[in-house]
């Protein structure tokens, strides 16, 4: 499995960016920066946010799209499925096995 994915998830700021994109997909860089600074009091430069987004994009967790003159960032949680496939979760219908 790609190290990119785990590296992308290993940073709290990047996880916050994913939280914000979960709330609303399709944000400009400006909106992401506003949310980080105003909602989360994270004083990070726009350039640093861009670098975080580049890592998230490399991991496939964020996709960008151009719409006319604007560029939007969308969330893509599909890569997370690979984690669940590698370490499958117990079927919720089955009673939970207790480990001794």
């Amino acid at each position, binding site marked *: 499995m790609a190290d990119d994915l785990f590296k992308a998830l290993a940073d709290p700021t990047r996880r916050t960016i994913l939280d914000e994109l979960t709330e609303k997909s399709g*944000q*400009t*860089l400006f909106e992401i920066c506003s949310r980080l600074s*105003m909602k989360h009091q994270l004083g990070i430069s726009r350039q640093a946010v861009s670098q975080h987004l580049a890592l998230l994009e490399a991991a496939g967790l964020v996709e960008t799209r151009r719409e006319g003159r604007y560029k939007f960032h969308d969330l893509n949680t599909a890569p997370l499925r690979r984690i669940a496939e590698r370490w499958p979760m117990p079927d919720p219908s089955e009673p939970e096995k207790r480990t001794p």
Partner: protein
Amino acid sequence: MRIHLTSVFVDDQAKAEHFYTEILGFEKKHDIPLGEEARWLTVVAPDEPDGTELLLEPAGHPAVKPYRDALVKDGIPLAQFAVTDVEAEYERLHALGVRFTQEPLAMGQVTTAVFDDTCGNLIQIASQAQ
């Protein structure tokens, strides 16, 4: 010292005059021909006719396009206007066909939204919770 005038570059002054007066609701303050079709065109808020003027300046300089293209791509507004209620203003402008790159977003006491002025700029509107 006081801020008497600020400006935004606009692709087309006639189009800008329409958008800033008919759509946004500002009032024209000065309209002086400057030759070669350029005008000294300013608008003010209707309830503050002696307040800060906004100059709608022709975007002819070659540096303007790359500068604005880069800002618009990242969703960065070039000016900010105060409104009483961002949500209400969003509904009003959206109904008039204005394109928003950021829908109303409440962050603590402040709510903001960002729209395209159709003249090459993104504009932010903001309101403060009472």
